[in-house]
């Protein structure tokens, strides 16, 4: 199959960019979206052109490094899937596909489709951890945790930090990411002692990074490749309000 591409090209941070047209011929429907871009890049390299820069690592939806906006939706048309899990059979022969980077002031474009997501790391560093004395590994089940709580923590812990929530939000808010990282510790007994301090510090850092505010629309949940629920945001709001009074 043949698809036409409109790809955001930008030489470097802070530089002007624009959508550039490419044609990807010899696309196999079983190719992944990123393989299609690989093939386009091989063609560009052969011609001596600059290949399209994009992030990827695991290419199986677990690392969170890939992520572009495909036809107006972060990670593309598939629900609960990352960019690397999208396949070309999702598109029709002759389709025009627009590919843009995740856009937010807190995610500056480094080159083409690659953005700097270090802001997320700084939010984690502000409080997304538990402090404990390490020693020998504790006995299994020495700390009983209700199944429902363990499930909740696991659901939140699924977040791979890809940033699609920020990309989808009309306010470029990072509330879904931050709340998932707060919840997966906060609902467990190990995370309880630092619960107040954690939420305050992480929210402070999130605001400092220049993300927007939450308008409670839930577009973040709709694009999240791990289907993280905005219930996490409600819990973060609760925890924050509890922590400050």
């Amino acid at each position, binding site marked *: 199959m043949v698809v036409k591409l*409109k790809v*955001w090209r930008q030489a470097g941070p802070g530089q002007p960019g624009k*959508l550039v047209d490419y044609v990807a011929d010899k696309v196999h429907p079983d190719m992944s979206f990123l393989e299609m871009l690989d093939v386009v890049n091989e063609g560009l390299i052969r011609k001596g052109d600059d290949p399209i820069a994009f992030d990827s690592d695991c290419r199986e939806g677990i690392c969170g490094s890939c992520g572009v*906006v495909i*036809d*107006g*939706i*972060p990670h593309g048309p598939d*629900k609960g899937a990352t960019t690397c899990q999208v396949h070309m059979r999702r598109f029709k022969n002759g389709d025009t596909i*627009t590919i*843009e980077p995740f*856009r*937010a*002031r*807190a995610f500056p474009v480094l080159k083409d489709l690659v953005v700097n997501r270090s802001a997320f790391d700084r939010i984690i560093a502000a409080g997304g951890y538990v402090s404990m004395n390490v020693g020998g590994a504790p006995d299994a089940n020495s700390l009983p945790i209700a199944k429902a709580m363990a499930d909740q923590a696991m659901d939140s812990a699924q977040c791979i930090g890809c940033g699609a929530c920020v990309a*989808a939000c*009309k*306010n*470029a*808010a990072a*509330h879904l990411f931050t709340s998932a990282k707060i919840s997966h510790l906060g609902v467990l007994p190990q995370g309880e002692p630092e619960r107040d301090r954690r939420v*305050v510090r992480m*929210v*402070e850092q*999130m*605001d400092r990074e*220049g*993300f*927007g*505010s*939450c*308008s*409670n*629309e*839930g*577009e973040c*949940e*709709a*694009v999240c490749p791990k289907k993280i*629920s*905005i*219930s996490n*945001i*409600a*819990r*973060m*709001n*609760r*925890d*924050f*309000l509890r*922590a*400050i009074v």
Partner: protein
Amino acid sequence: MTLQKALSSSIGSKFLIALTGLFLFLFLVGHLAGNLLFMLGADAFNNYAHALISNPLILVAEGGLIAIFLLHIFKTVTMFVANRRARPDRYAAKKWAKTKNDRSRKTLSSTTMILTGTITLLFLVTHLATFKYGPYYETTEGIRDLYRLQFAVFSNPGYVAFYLVAMGVIGFHLWHGISSAAQSFGVDSPRWTPRLIWTGRVFTVAVSLGFALLPIYTFVMGRN
């Protein structure tokens, strides 16, 4: 973290917006209840209005209401500006990700809050100029005859239409506003949230329809 700093954080700001919004909504409910006395006739309506405006506490209530209004406006406008700044470069193509199967609450209502809020403010100014600061009629008992004023205003189909549109806009604002406030307070549970969203919408429709009923009723009654 000081309380002041907390309340200017993104979560604290949304908390204040939700809280002031909730108060404004409760005011609307009270206002509607009072207005419905119109249907009971001139005496009931005028006596109620007189009891309200002759009470010295009304100044405190009005002051509080204005303060709540200003806080709501200040917080939403500053947040709107900050949110725009959070994405300086727009997308060339951006679509709603919402589908039937997920829980995205994005609607035309949720994307136009700042616009419907602004229209509501403009409406409020006209509304106060028309009624509170409008023509002063007196009853034979010597109290303000708002019953007559309401007939005078809504004998004009233009005013009726204007009020109907304004009530639609306010309803549009509340359609997202009520459930959004609940989420900002952190009120959420898998079982109750969907019901809460719908309850908010039912309230919204009830209040806007209730308000919309009055101009129509007055107009029709005035004709006969």
